[in-house]
């Protein structure tokens, strides 16, 4: 039987459609109500509550914790001082991405990490090999995680704790809600204003109830993973298993991707000035030096008129309502040659808010410049058709509230 999260009693009664999926061995609703769009607008219009417990969770402490993290993580852990969170990734020696995740340094020397796949043993092996005095603890079952995301997220959470007011984007703190100790970070996978809460499993239902109560006047909506995934494309956030795969379970290099190929070169801006000895550094340096990236990851906005046209010409309506796909869609160069393969889209959604079909795509470097035009293959009545799409800088949607200061009583 699949595991259930500590929020399961609440999740089960809120799930009104009887749909469940397995996420990392846990039972999770892909949606709670028939309208995915209503859940999606929970994220963009009011406030949403997501059970994201199936993520693997680790607590990393000990004298050499920072030294260990500086070695194992590809992004500079110095950028994550106490009270901060950081989006990061870790690579193998070949410079290929093993995973991405968010790390928090809540108090000095105490780090908390979420990851989509288990990484306890891998981290322990690295720690042992470098002789680091570090304690890596799998706390996956000890904590549940809730994501409270949307324009009213602050209005909801501030009713329960004062400590969030000063919390800036990617800030993290320990606090208490209804007398229960929780960790709150101003992070999320939606690209919106929001918070993520690490909650002791035994307090799970109590905190869920507190948030739902506080959210009542703000139209709080429990959301499943599908609405979340629609939002994350707008936010330009990659999903392991869709937009890239862990090098750990690859058969050949063609299945692996480097952080540069994933568009994370911003993580390595200071590489020239530092001497961080992280795993994969030599390969990444060589890739930067030799410009040997095989492709890069970009946002792609489909031309609305063309999208309408190819479907209309066939006598059908263009699919725009609740479209989300992780199927590979081929991309071709525009020019004289027909079907001149260039790359592919790894995720696709039709954004209700932005009124545009959007994709996350892999393209050769010469096609990566914003504004570059390519053809995206869509299926119209089971036949392949090309539609014009343009490379666009991600995130596609980036509201100021995501990073704005939350002053006491501020309206959103």
């Amino acid at each position, binding site marked *: *039987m*699949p*595991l259930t999260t500590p929020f399961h009693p609440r999740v089960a009664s809120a799930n009104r459609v009887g749909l469940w999926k*397995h996420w*990392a*061995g846990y039972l999770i609703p892909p949606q709670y109500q028939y309208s995915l769009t209503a859940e999606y607008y929970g994220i963009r219009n009011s406030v949403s509550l997501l059970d994201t417990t199936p993520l693997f969770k680790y607590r990393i402490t000990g004298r050499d914790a920072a030294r260990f993290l500086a070695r194992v993580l590809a992004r500079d852990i110095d950028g994550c001082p106490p009270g901060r969170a950081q989006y990061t990734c870790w690579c193998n020696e070949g410079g290929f991405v093993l995973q991405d995740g968010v790390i928090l340094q809540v108090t000095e020397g105490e780090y908390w990490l979420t990851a989509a796949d*288990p*990484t*306890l*043993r*891998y981290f*322990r092996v690295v720690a042992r090999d470098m002789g680091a005095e570090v304690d890596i603890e*799998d706390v*996956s079952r000890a904590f549940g995680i809730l994501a409270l995301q949307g324009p009213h997220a602050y209005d909801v959470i501030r009713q329960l704790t004062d400590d969030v007011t000063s919390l800036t984007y990617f800030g993290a703190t320990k606090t208490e809600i209804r007398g229960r100790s929780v960790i709150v970070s101003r992070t999320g996978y939606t690209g919106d204003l929001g918070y993520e809460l690490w909650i002791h499993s035994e307090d799970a239902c109590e905190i869920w109830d507190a948030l739902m109560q506080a959210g009542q006047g703000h139209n709080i909506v429990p959301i499943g993973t599908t609405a979340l995934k629609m939002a994350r494309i707008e936010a330009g956030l990659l999903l392991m298993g869709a937009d890239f795969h862990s090098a*750990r*379970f690859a*058969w050949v290099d063609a299945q692996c991707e480097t952080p540069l190929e994933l568009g994370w070169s911003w993580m390595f801006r200071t590489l020239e000035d530092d001497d961080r000895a992280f795993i994969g550094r030599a390969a990444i340096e060589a890739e930067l030096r030799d410009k040997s990236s095989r492709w890069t990851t970009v946002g792609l906005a489909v031309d609305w008129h063309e999208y309408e046209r190819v479907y209309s010409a066939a006598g059908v309506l263009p699919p725009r309502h609740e479209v989300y796909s992780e199927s590979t869609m081929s991309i071709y160069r525009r020019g004289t040659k027909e079907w001149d393969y260039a790359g592919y889209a790894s995720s696709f959604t039709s954004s209700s808010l932005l009124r545009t079909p959007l994709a996350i795509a892999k393209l050769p470097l010469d096609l990566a410049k914003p504004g570059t035009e390519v053809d995206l293959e869509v299926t119209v009545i089971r036949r392949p058709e090309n539609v014009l799409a343009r490379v666009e800088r991600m995130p596609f949607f980036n509201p100021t509230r995501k990073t704005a200061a939350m002053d006491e009583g501020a309206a959103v």
Partner: protein
Amino acid sequence: MSGVDRYDAIVVGAGHNGLVNACYLAKAGLNTLLLERRHLVGGATITEEVVPGFHFTTFSYAISLMRPEIVKDLELVKHGMMVLPLVNTFQPGLDGEYLLLGADSDANYHEIARHSAADAEAARDLDHLIARLVRALKPWMDRIPPNSRSSDPADMAALAELEGWYEALDPDVRAMLERFRTKSAAEILDEYFESDLVKALYASSGIIGSRCSVRDRASGIVWLFHKLGEFDGDPGHWGFHKGGNGGFTQVLARAFESFGGTVRLNASVAGLRYEEGRSTGVELEDGTVIESDLVVSALDPRQTFLRLVDPEDLPEDLVGRIRDFKFQGTAAKVNFALSDVPTFPGLEGREDIFRGFTNLGPSIDYLMEAWADCEAGRVSRRPFVDCCVQSTIDPDMAPAGQHVMSCFVMYAPYHLADSDWETERDNLGITVQETIEEFFPGFGELVLHREVVTPMDIEQLIGLSEGNIFAGELLEDQLFLNRPAPGWNQYRTPISGYYQCGSGTHPGGCVTGGPGWLAAKQILGDREA
């Protein structure tokens, strides 16, 4: 065709490799006679209705390594081939603990994580690495191996190709191959796991059918060998043929018939007839002579080279090598007819736990204690038992609601120090039943019938020397370039027109069909040349 005493080809022994070989020869248009000493085809791959309604896989009991090309070439699906998935693996402990692994990778992660989260992660790494290695090895399973003693340009080229292949392996994959070649199963597992229950589950693959302990270097190769198969392309997984493994050889028999082949049962071959180094036919025990320029032995190397022909007529080094070929069977079977499925305390009513292998051998120490008895020349007092309640998968194996349980038992050494197998037969059955009782209290009350198959039975009934289930140990110096002997690993023999196609040739034991198929390839190639 019966009554004709001359055939284009005679295959001696209707084990699954003899059947596969005979199918290929018949399909190529040769008038082929398949001779079987017993009253049924299948050799070690048979299903017998020992008690009315209860169908026992007397010897071989699961399938994984069957070469997919053979299935297509011989149109086996058309003849009824149906391999059912073994969806679960159940590893009970003696302390109420257990591991129940199934078809879902995430669920398996959490199941192993109950014992160790690090091990759950390690299992993924190890499984992936083994799958990569198996993929790399597959082409060598499916071709006639190079001859290391030949100066023929084709063989020299094949050996160079082998070297090139090895050099080109991904370093991680090559390192894993070297681990299997140079380390024991237990040593490899110590690198990956901390939980004894998890280690023991993996380790048991390293001893199946072999005279070695999990701490013996030889166990690495044995483990790898058992991972070389697949179920529907899913590497390392095993299946169970409809009607038991005997159901599979019946499929082969139907295919053989469809290609126009002739089977003669109760026809025990006394020897090969040959003149001036050329095969002329065979002579049966009853004096019947059947002529053929082409005779293929599907028997093991000892029978093929030392019994069917006069060793005096063979090169001394080959004879010496075959005399030294290690058989030393150490496995037995105990098969049960049961009134119900056994019950594991805490998992009452869970019949599904038996839909796969149930592995009795919960720790490395347990497996080593079993080995200590074997080394001392006696049956393990607490044996490793691989159980398969096949009727939980195939309802036609037993009357409704009742069950058959195939138990593969280690160790039961062919050579007993202070006893003989007639004396030990009952003792073996009782020991196995008592062992199962330890894990599944109340088991004894379910037993309707118990069949004991000793290594001596395996030798005497189906002719596998010393009861070795692989027709010779899966030792590195008895595999691939060396199976059954360097220079004689390409299915030919020193006698022209006399070939070998049993599990004592590459790729080796288990129901692979590989030896029968590759031998046919060699034979048909030689005829064209």
